[in-house]
């Protein structure tokens, strides 16, 4: 296996994508206060997982596919989706990526290889394996990336799919973003491996596939680890389970409340439920976005001035996404009855 370290240009690309996800989601979060009522239902942010998302997707090539969960804003952003269409979707507007039919939890962008998102924990894992079967039949060396959380590894869908994927040597990489919490339940409370002090990657052993744990806050480490798994999959050797350890910097999602109650992001569960302020603050100090900026500036890959210029440009891009989404009309009522059947 030889995964090349990304060159300077590519490292700057990785940083830019991480920042784009962060700036986009900061505006999703801010919309609850800046534009109350514009976002309905439930949103879930990837802040803290940007390095894992971009590091994983930095190997993506045309013909590959990615599938993810309801925490799905980051992936299409990296794969080339228009943030204006993504924000319009989250605002339920006609110009939304999915015409306002899916919302925050169901972003899909087939033309960019983002096949779909299930809002049901673990349910999308077999879908990724199915797309990988398609890739295996086509024999073009395409791979599928399946993103899900640590909570999903307690679902039958996870275990059934890993078994079949390994048995059939499907070209799929299972990227488990382990943020340590299933909503307000800690891994040690729900996972036998975690309770025994083992990494969750050991679950791969039950299915005769490699299981590796990587620091998901380091994009270059993820690039390396997922890159090796992708090479393995492309060369017909089958799937890998990558446990990417991240820390979710926001609460699981915005508050769940009936209509009329203003929605917002509550305090992180580590503090609100478990009173572990130090744990959370340590995670904030390790925030992968500013950290990678520091790494690039320190290594001379990126000047401070250039980093600021990128930040300004990204902020402008994402503010334009909000402005666009606010101006986009609601979909025509008849559209609720379209696309039920093909």
């Amino acid at each position: 296996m030889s995964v090349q370290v990304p060159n300077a240009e590519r490292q700057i690309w990785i940083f830019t994508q991480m920042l784009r996800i962060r700036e986009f989601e900061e505006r999703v979060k801010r919309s609850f206060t800046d534009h109350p009522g514009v976002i309905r239902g439930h949103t879930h942010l990837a802040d803290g997982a940007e390095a894992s998302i971009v590091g994983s997707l930095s190997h993506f090539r045309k013909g590959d596919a990615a599938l993810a969960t309801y925490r799905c804003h980051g992936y299409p952003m990296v794969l080339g989706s228009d943030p204006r269409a993504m924000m319009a979707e989250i605002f339920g507007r006609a110009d939304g990526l999915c015409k306002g039919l899916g919302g925050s939890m169901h972003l899909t962008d087939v033309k960019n290889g983002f096949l779909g998102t299930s809002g049901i924990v673990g349910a999308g894992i077999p879908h990724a394996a199915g797309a990988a079967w398609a890739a295996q039949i086509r024999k073009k060396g395409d791979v599928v990336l399946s993103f899900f959380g640590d909570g999903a590894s307690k679902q039958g869908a996870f275990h059934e799919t890993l078994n079949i994927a390994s048995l059939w040597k499907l070209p799929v990489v299972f990227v488990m973003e382990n943020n340590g919490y299933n909503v307000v339940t800690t891994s040690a409370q729900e996972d036998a491996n975690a309770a025994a002090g083992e990494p969750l990657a050991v679950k791969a052993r039950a299915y005769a596939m490699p299981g590796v744990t990587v620091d998901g806050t380091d994009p270059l480490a993820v690039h390396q680890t997922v890159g090796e798994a992708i090479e393995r999959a492309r060369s017909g050797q089958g799937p890998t389970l990558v446990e990417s350890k991240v820390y979710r910097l926001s609460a699981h999602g915005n508050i769940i409340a009936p209509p009329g109650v203003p929605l917002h992001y509550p305090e992180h569960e580590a503090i609100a439920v478990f009173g572990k302020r130090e744990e959370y603050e340590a995670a904030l100090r390790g925030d992968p976005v500013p950290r990678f900026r520091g790494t690039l500036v320190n290594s001379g890959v990126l000047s401070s001035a250039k980093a600021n210029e990128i930040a300004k440009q990204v902020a402008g891009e994402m503010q334009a996404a909000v402005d666009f989404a606010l101006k986009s009309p609601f979909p025509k009522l008849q559209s609720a009855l379209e696309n039920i059947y093909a």
Partner: protein
Amino acid sequence: MAQLPFIAAVDAGIHQEMRRDPSVLYFGQNMATTENDQFVKEYGHDRVRVTPISETAEIGIAIGAAMAGFRPVIELYMAEFMLVAMDQVVNEAPRFRYMSGGQVKVPLVMKAGFGFAAGWAGQHTGSLTAMFMGVPGLKVVVPSTPADAKGLMATAIRDDNPVVFLHHYLLTLETGEVPDGEHLVPFGKAAIRRTGGDVTIVATGWMVHRALGAAKKLAAEGINAEVIDPRTVAPLDLATILKSVGKTGRLLLADQAPRHASVTAQIASDVAEHGFSSLKAPITQVTARDTTVPYSEPLEAYVIPDEARIVAAARKLVESKAPARKATPARKAGPVRKAKPAKKASPRPRAARPGARGTPRRAARQRRGGRR
């Protein structure tokens, strides 16, 4: 035309489509385990695979393969096994096209047998059709003849949506004429199995044949029943049913499923809403009793409707506004009971039920004041 058993006709439909379209896949449990398997021989292991007992992954993998451009057919064996993976059947497969704003198609067929009322007790005998028919995005197919089994399977595979294909286990070895070569039966187009002007009987699957048997007996009494087989319940050909009811003014709905939230309840509601002015009598439903299917043979027979119950209900329905009709003598149980031995001539693969059939049902009918 060839004479084929029902189950071979289903296979013929799959072969027809696998030969013409390399994107059709066929997989499931306990199939394709040797190189002698006909599907493996013809299409190879890329397209034909055996799976472990993992319904969630099987259906989920089909969804992913479908979204990636293939047309999977999943061999699920029994409809109940879909319940293990209900999320994938109801909340994944039919949702993706819609939630993506029409970006993806999910063309797949979930092939499952149902209704195995042959001593399989509570968990392998269900008629679960209604659980699927109300799910937007799903199509539900219930063939009753070998010809339709082939043609509807082929149409299901070509359809760009998830299709639940429910074949009745008691029809497995029934033979019938099946067209050679390419054969497609359209969805949403009911078959009028028998024409008649006195009462419309709507039934699906195995119950179509019970309805036809009943119609024959009714004809001997001077009652002409029209028997309609919707063939697909989603989409449902309500127009054909309404047209028939417009002619007969009487509707009898026969189903092997229990009554609550059933296919018959749905059709009854649709006809009451859209065909009320045609009705000369209340709509009648002949269904299984609202219970789990019991193991013991006479109890199973008591729970599941048969020809005699259809005949009795049809007769009552026709008489309800036509008291002058010369059917009165036939209301006695005698002639109905006498007609029973003829059923033994039926080649369906089901054990005869000597002596046990009529008694508890008749007793119950008396208890219930003849309501059923």
